[in-house]
């Protein structure tokens, strides 16, 4: 488990002010802090999970809603032992030319599998988690999507999580 004793430490002071300045109309107002958590065991013993906004999902299931004007607030489980050929990208908002040649550039599943085999990390959770980054409702994203993923990550007994925006 992680240590939240420094939960009041802001990861990036002024983050939301920066977002609102760069993206007029974002209108995100948050006064609370982003809690930091310390890793309580060596990385070589830690079970790692992976959360990505890349829109990667197993082939053959309901694709992410890439057309909805307000965004998609669902996530997909991606088995951590999956092969890139088992996976597909559904999203419209970032270039996928490189990722279509090698999925690891955006969703480094094979690199994480290698790290687990080599003992760089203690292991992987059974599933990774993926959603699309195009979401217009930051509050809903935090209240539902992020909370749901966090619950799943805890349920899978993760010691650490790698977060990767697309």
């Amino acid at each position, binding site marked *: 488990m992680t240590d939240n004793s420094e939960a009041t430490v802001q990861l990036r002071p002024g983050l939301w002010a920066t977002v609102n300045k760069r993206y007029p109309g974002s209108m995100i107002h948050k006064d609370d802090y982003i809690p930091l958590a310390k890793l309580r065991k060596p990385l070589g013993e830690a079970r790692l999970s992976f959360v990505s906004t890349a829109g990667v999902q197993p082939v053959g299931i309901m694709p992410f809603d890439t*057309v909805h004007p307000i965004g998609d607030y669902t996530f997909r489980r991606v088995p951590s032992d999956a092969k890139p050929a088992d996976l597909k990208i*559904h999203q419209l908002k970032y270039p996928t030319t490189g990722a279509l040649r090698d999925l690891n550039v955006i969703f480094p599943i094979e690199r994480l599998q290698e790290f687990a085999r080599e003992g760089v990390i203690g292991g992987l959770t059974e599933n990774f988690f993926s959603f699309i980054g195009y979401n217009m409702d930051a509050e809903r994203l935090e209240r539902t999507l992020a909370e749901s993923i966090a619950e799943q990550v805890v349920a899978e007994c993760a010691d650490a999580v790698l977060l990767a925006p697309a």
Partner: protein
Amino acid sequence: MSLKYLKEAVANNDTEKLIRYVRLHFGDGNEAAGRKEIDKAWMEALKLLLDVPATDREIILQTLADRDAATLAHLFFHLHFYFVQRSGEWIHDGQL
């Protein structure tokens, strides 16, 4: 922009903000490109009907009658991207 921004625009009947958002959405952040994308979708739909082919009006009318407005609105966005993709001129970085 955010959902809050859009809801305020609706409350204030600020149609310029709303259509600008739609264009930005379709144009991946480029309003002029979004305007062309909207035109492209309509032209593609028009081309398909020039020869007056047989179409399934029954299912169209049934869908319009049976489905709720939000589902039809969602379908509308799907149709936009369907026709843009069908046109062969795909400007987006990613895929549906």
